């Protein structure tokens, strides 16, 4: 069953995405230089004429409007073109990165949720207590430490001094024949520990604060007082009645986090030599790899719009009051 509301939302997607692609295409061209200029940085034996020839071959000498027209034409058949850096299909390059990115982000999101929600809710119930204050200090500390300081410090302690965990990368070099499937899993888990921890710690603050304030709001409501007056146990009052309602804003937040799941953190990925989407996007921008930038933009835009939609739908589903007719 597809409701008219849903259909309408989907129809709106098309012009939104079109607009985003148009703006980003022209914005991207405003940045000086192009894909070919990145070649052989200032090697005097590579002449300006040779570079111009390559530009001509790649179709980069045509007017921007024409280039955009051709891009849209290809897009209709979902052909995102080839990367200017290595002539590989852009989609292949993105799909290659997606699993590693999803793995890292799902793990850290799961870890964050697992910690942030209980901590946030509990400190709301005990608002003003010593626990609440200590937690506030801790999460803000985690939020304020620059990622690279934290990451390098952890590498130094756990990688170098204690030797418990690998410093960077996604796998050890002794792969293939000698490692069993099981050992590979353990090896990868060991590599993931530090990046997941760093990533979680930085998002812990925001999420636990949200959880705390949303719970705080709920427990001052009349129906909670009623529940307490009825003589229900605190576990039932907070764990069932309050929790359900306090979760609602979190759902919206999670919907908005969908694009973050596939987008990556440039700093984290660079430090941990992690092969994710963040580095792909960053390198694409630095290399003016237009096709790749466009594909990533459209992809992220699509996910943002979808994330909003899903958040709305889930919201309506969990909260009967705001169901749309």
């Amino acid at each position, binding site marked *: 069953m597809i409701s008219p509301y849903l259909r309408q939302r989907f129809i709106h997607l098309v012009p939104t995405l079109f607009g985003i692609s148009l703006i980003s295409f022209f914005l991207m061209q405003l940045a000086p*230089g192009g894909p070919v200029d990145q070649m052989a940085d200032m090697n005097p034996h590579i002449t*300006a004429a*040779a570079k111009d020839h390559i530009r001509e071959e*790649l179709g980069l000498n045509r007017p921007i409007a024409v280039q955009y027209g051709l891009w849209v034409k290809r897009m209709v058949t979902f052909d995102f073109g080839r990367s200017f*850096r290595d002539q590989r299909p852009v989609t292949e390059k993105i799909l290659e990165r997606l699993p590693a990115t999803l793995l890292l982000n799902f793990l850290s999101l799961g870890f964050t949720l697992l910690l942030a929600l209980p901590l946030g809710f509990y400190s709301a119930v005990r608002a003003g207590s010593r626990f609440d204050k200590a937690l506030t200090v801790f999460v803000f500390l985690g939020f304020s430490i620059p990622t690279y300081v934290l990451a390098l410090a952890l590498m130094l302690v756990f990688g170098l001094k204690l030797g418990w965990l690998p410093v960077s990368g996604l796998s050890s*070099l002794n792969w293939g*024949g000698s490692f069993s499937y099981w050992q590979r899993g353990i090896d990868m888990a060991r590599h993931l520990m530090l990046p997941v921890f760093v990533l979680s710690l930085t998002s812990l603050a925001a999420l636990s604060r949200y959880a705390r304030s949303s719970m705080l709001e709920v427990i001052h409501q009349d129906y909670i007082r009623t529940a307490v007056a009825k003589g229900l146990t605190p576990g039932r009052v907070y764990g069932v009645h309050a929790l359900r309602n306090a979760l609602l804003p979190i759902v919206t937040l999670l919907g908005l986090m969908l694009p973050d799941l596939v987008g990556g953190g440039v700093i984290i990925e660079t430090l941990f*030599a992690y092969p994710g989407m963040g580095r792909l996007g960053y390198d694409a921008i630095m290399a003016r790899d237009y096709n790749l930038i466009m594909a990533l933009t459209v992809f992220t835009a699509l996910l943002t719009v979808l994330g909003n939609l899903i958040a709305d739908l889930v919201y309506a589903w969990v909260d009967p009051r705001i169901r749309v007719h």
Partner: protein
Amino acid sequence: MNRWLLILLLSCPALAVDTGDTYVDASIGDASFLNPMLSNDSASNDIVNLVYNGLVKYDKDLNVVGDLAQRYEVLRGGLEIVFHLRKNVRWHDGQPFTADDVLFTYEKLRDPKVLTPYADSFADVEQVTAPDPYTVRVTYKHSFAPGLMSWSMGIIARHIYKNGDFNTHPANRHPVGTGPFRFKEWKTDQYLVLEANRDYFDGRPNLDRYVYRIIPDQSVQFMEMRNQTIDNIGLTPDQFKAYDAIFQNHQRYQYPAFKYIFMGFNLRNPLFKDARVRRAIALAIDRESIVKGILLGLGEPISGPFPISSWAYNKQVPSLPFNPETARQLLKEAGWVPDAKGHLSKNGQPFSFTLMTNQGNKVRALCTEIIQQQLAALGIDVHVRILEWTVLKDTYIGKKNFDAIVFGWSMGPEPDNYELWHSSQQGPSQYNFCSYSNPDVDRLLVEGRRNFDQKKRLEIYHRIHALIANDLPYVFLYCPYELQAIHKRIQGPAVAPAGIGWNFHEWWVAKDKQRYRTEMMP
């Protein structure tokens, strides 16, 4: 008698060298094309150089010697080069290597559809022929000395590339070459793995495996080195000067790099048209203190347009001394007089200009600051602007929209730098962005290209060095050292004029010190 000696020599190993182990290298960026004609970044070149061979190469003393060619002859005053190819070379898939592959490589270089940036190095070639399967004859329209070394570019296999689109060919990611290492695996932005080519024509490499790890952050690389998880690392001067204890498992090496750093003037700017002003600025910059302060002494001041280890570098040309007094004098002669506060001006116009450099290079940024300070002492007002690489190159340098820049050139041992100094190379985005023009230099640059006689060339380039050093279109600052640390278990690295990797396929590790077992296939 001789036969017995030979048998004796063959039966006992001349050198007790062990094979095995893996060498783990680290790089900041990933490769793009593993195809010698398309690769244009240092990571791709690192791999391509191990997987492919050219017809010629530099030996440890930077002499041009045969590689896939057993030997070569330069005939008719350089109008013709004949390469006599080795007969025992096989591609990594077992097919024999012949002159036909060289013809194919040349065909592709001239194919306009191929996205190679190197075609211009072969622009003067008239014809390439193969009189027999092991001889290649190249004729030139006019003699072109740098042309010989252009044949050091990797030769590709016809049977691999003959079908399919060249630019997107699968072999660009799974190369089949003739080199000491054969390609095994590439995990994008993680690592590349190569294996010893046991049938290499120059003897199998002693190391079984070569792993190229992509670690984008330099401090993380440093940590991996301390953790002994990488065997080779390029170092910054402050890393190089870190405590000895940090390098307990690694040996540090230093040698002059084939690059130099300079401050370039825009000679179309009226400020810098006067040679006295340029000389004054050069005299007011203390290059010794730059090398000591920024490079921690790991570099050398230079006097002219060649890396210090190049044979073209003219040691007779004295490096300009640091002499602010003479600088003031020269500026006065040129009409620049200090006001009450010491600021220089001429006809009411203050002496002020912008010095630019690219972002992300700490050493260059520090350089601009030191220059700013030292020129302030003369009463010259310097604004420093640090710009993103592409912005600087495209919007400012390419369009000659700059006053002065701090910049660097990396060049090979071949000293031909026509593109940098010839007056015909001043167009937009060309490399003579300073707009330097000296008819004598123009003539010598052409002569240097036409001449194959090493003695004559030496004279020509020494002369070019002296002329440019006198004209000062750049203030030549310094030549940095290449700084590197290699794991101590690796035996064989030795610094030579060619740097350090020239005998890489002979490096080895004693059996009891090997860290990676062969059966552990990466």
